[in-house]
């Protein structure tokens, strides 16, 4: 019987009988087309293998000098299967978003048709529901992998593909970014503890469109009692709200960073410069590129029908980021906390519609600063 090659950069059906011996030992069938599929994916594939000394979880990069207290807790869970009937984005099989690469920097910023806008509203609503369900499980004691499982299940329930899954070979269905992690944290066996903050960055692909949003949540009551943590999280939330208020046709994208940076600076927070807001729709990431820092050189002017995200990342200390050896997890260089909020926005004739707006029952939400 044909199976799918376990290499995330392959994804082809194969009749091969070549299996990973480590997985076999643990009762898992990981089939590879040939040894080159196996070799080239080994450094990622091995992350689902349990530790050799029999401990529950382990740090796969013991020699790396981490900037904060957080450590990856491997093994990762197996790649979660996606139901056959769910429409896949082009990168789902081999990790390469060909359509995005082709569209890169053409200069045109898509304006959605009425029909697509209606679809977009629906997709956005579904993505909000999925985030809200997942976020309702955020509490001390849960692992980020468990949150990933919940999110994945909610996606499947709604016939949506979790966009991060295998996007440039990202191994999981959602990004979970704790404390000093700025973004792109990989769900693993890390247990949330009282006093942490965690960002859940959800994107789904549904009806041919992507919808992207994220929020940062306080884990337990301890986090809500730490003045710096609250200042960081609430300032970030406010930055996003202020930027959204300014959105209307005719605004230059480069102005948004000025608004965000001004409010961040006023609250003694720094703004991450490496990651930006982006256009979204049929593609996960496309034009425009929207930096969140002041005096940026973003290209373009807002027109009605454009859909894009604003997703400022603020830090208590340095704005500088570094990557873990997993090549995904971006953390602050000084190990201090970072927070992020993201909405997906539709520019209208007169202003803006927050496609991913919170509902009355959405978990999380602002808390008062502690003076």
């Amino acid at each position, binding site marked *: 019987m044909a199976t799918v090659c376990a290499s995330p950069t392959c994804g082809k059906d194969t009749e091969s009988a070549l299996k990973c*011996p480590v997985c076999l030992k643990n009762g898992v069938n990981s089939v590879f087309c040939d040894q080159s599929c196996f070799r080239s994916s080994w450094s*990622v594939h091995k992350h689902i293998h349990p530790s050799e000394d029999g401990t529950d979880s382990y740090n796969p990069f013991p020699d790396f000098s981490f900037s904060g207290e957080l450590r990856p807790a491997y093994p990762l869970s197996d790649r979660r299967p996606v139901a056959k009937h769910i429409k896949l984005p082009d990168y789902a099989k081999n990790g390469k978003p060909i359509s995005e690469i082709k569209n890169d920097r*053409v200069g045109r910023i898509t304006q959605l048709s009425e029909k697509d806008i209606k679809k977009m509203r629906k997709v956005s609503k579904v993505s909000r529901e999925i985030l809200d369900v997942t976020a309702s499980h955020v509490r001390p004691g849960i692992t980020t992998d468990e949150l990933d499982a919940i999110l994945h299940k909610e996606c499947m329930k709604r016939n949506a593909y979790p966009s991060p899954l295998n996007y440039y070979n990202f191994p999981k269905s959602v990004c979970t970014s704790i404390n000093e992690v700025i973004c792109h944290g990989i769900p693993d066996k890390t247990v949330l503890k009282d006093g942490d903050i965690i960002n859940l960055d959800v994107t789904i692909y549904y009806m041919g469109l992507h919808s992207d949003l994220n929020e940062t949540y306080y884990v337990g009551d301890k986090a809500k009692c730490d003045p710096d943590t609250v200042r960081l999280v609430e300032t970030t939330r406010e930055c996003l709200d202020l930027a959204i208020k300014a959105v209307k046709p005719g605004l230059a994208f480069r102005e948004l960073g000025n608004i965000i940076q001004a409010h961040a600076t006023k609250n003694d927070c720094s703004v991450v*410069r490496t990651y930006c807001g982006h256009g979204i729709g049929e593609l996960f990431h496309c034009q425009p590129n929207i930096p969140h820092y002041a005096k940026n*050189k973003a*290209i373009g*002017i807002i027109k009605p029908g454009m859909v894009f995200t604003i997703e400022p990342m603020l830090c208590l200390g340095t704005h500088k980021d570094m990557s873990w050896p997993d090549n995904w997890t971006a953390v602050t260089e000084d190990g201090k906390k970072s927070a992020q909020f993201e909405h997906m926005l539709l520019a209208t004739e007169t202003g803006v519609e927050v496609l991913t707006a919170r509902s009355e029952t959405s978990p999380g939400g602002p808390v008062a600063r502690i003076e």
Partner: protein
Amino acid sequence: MSNTVAQNIDSLKGWLEKNAFWRNELIIRPSKYGGIGVFAPDQMDYEDPLLLRIPKTSVLSAKNSLIYNLLVDYKYEEVDISTGMYGVIISVIYELSAGTKSPWYEYLNSIDFENSSVPVCLWDQDDKDNFKNTEVDLLNLLNPDELIQFYQECIKFAKASSQYVAIPAILNEDKASSAELVKLAQLHKFGQVVLSVISRAFKIDDYYDLGMVPGADLFNHMEPQLNGKNIVGHENIHFICDGSVCGECGEEDCDHEEELEMELDSDTEEIEDEEVDEVQETEFADQLNDADAESIAHGEDDGDDEDDDDEDDEDDDEDEDDDDDSSSEPDIESSQYDMDLESSVIEEEPIKEITMEYIKQMELEMENDSDADTNQDPDEESTVSLEGDEGEEGEDEEEEQEGEVDPEQDELAKELSDSSKCCDVVLVKLPEEIHEHEIFNSYGNELSNPYLLQRYGFITGQNVNDTCLLSVQVFKHIKHIKAGLSSEKQKQLELKFEWFEGMGFDIVNQLIGEHIQKEQKATKACGDKCEDNCDGCEEKDGCGAECEDGCEDGCGEEDDDELELPETWQLSPRINFTGECTLQTYAILTLLDLPFKIFKHKLLLVNKEKKLIRMIKEIFLEDQSSRSAHNAIIKNWCVQRLSGYPVLKPSSHHSLVKSMVEQEKAILQKFIDQ
């Protein structure tokens, strides 16, 4: 550069500090060569030739501008204003209009648009009358139609976009007809921006096309000089930018070519050609788009292009392999990629089972590979330091500990460390004391005065690229001969010129090109010897005192390769700066003389290309028996053209026109006196 505002230089330097690497010790002050110039200080350190490095993302180009998405969306009526020089000009107009909100505000503020000159096609009628019979007139550079058409398109764009962005003052115009427009002060303001941009734009690369490069445009022009028969550049700097990037995304290594190839297969080339043709339809735009091409080309490009392509192809192949074999780490360095690949492809037979032993061995190999791969290019790192003097290092560290590093500076340092994403101005020749150590660029070592005037608003005295066209006289001559012929012979004459236009001229032109290049090589003063001596002329002071003039011959490979030949036979009859007539002129006269029978059998009916080339060589180039008769005719043409200059009346640019006329007259006179 002539229209730089001296008072705003400090804020420009501030901009450069934030957005680029600029050699701070360089002195920017008034120059006797025009406006503001860049000078080397007495104790300049020439060890590092890099004077300016600026990220391509900070260049003011259409693709980097505020309005680029509006330009792309705009459905133009007459001219495409989203690309080429037009794209840069309209972008500059909007960035200017954005005032302090523009990321280029300090830079734009250093340019004196209001007191800039206007393109020569907008000069007043008295000047234009005085230009009659000059090259500027003959090359049709006085006709403002294309500029006006461009202006009208800009006005339409501004209106169409007014919903999203306020109409800049100079585009706020309701007059529709070109007759009304030409009288307007508005058009002159527009013209001032046009010339300011044209005179300062550089070709960046295939993706960004043309753009304004702050800092690089401060340098004044030094004209080339004649050394024997060769035109030799005397500039101190070169503008260098890796132009061989993907036109789609601006990256060097990307998937676009591969994708396109997959989709379009071999059609790709054809499509590109068509696009090029479209652009060339508008002569004005075409000429403009050539602007400053000299600053980029600089030899290496042309020669290496093919090689580069080959390399790319190889890369592509490897990429494809990667797809099949797959790699797990998205950001892994490509070289490591390759190594993994090689080891897996070359060494191994297909295996039936993966054993733990196999994995052990594999991990060992991978570890070795990644160890071998951690080398960085140390040169790259050291080229650009934002820290200033090394002595300050200690302070910098302290700063870092306090966490006070300016995030912008930090990011800039990162951007500047990748030279493939930057444009550089490098010193290629030491500044000289006789010019007070002013550092010069060359705006184009092939530019004659008419084109210098069109693009930069000035001319030089004794421009070695100047020529005098004799086209008008040639046409008159042919017409005169034709008038005396029977209708049958007239047809024969027409047939001859049809053949010349369709085929003959191209071959004649090519043969002449080869002939000139041979001659140039032969006259090289110190050819090979010099090449050896100063192989590294580009690098730094190799070009010093010992081999002075000769050395440029040896090192300036570009001069050989870029011989400019006239595009049509109609533009080919002319007198060169040296007072010699082009060989094409003799060819035209030979064609006129050629008995029809000989023409028919030796040229027209010859099918084999080799034979045809041999015949053409024989008839048009080797047979010089009628040279003196021809020279007499050409002398007469020169006299005719000399008599065509009007008596100059007072006009705003009287002295410039006078200088141009006198230089042209001198050239024509040189031929007559020979």
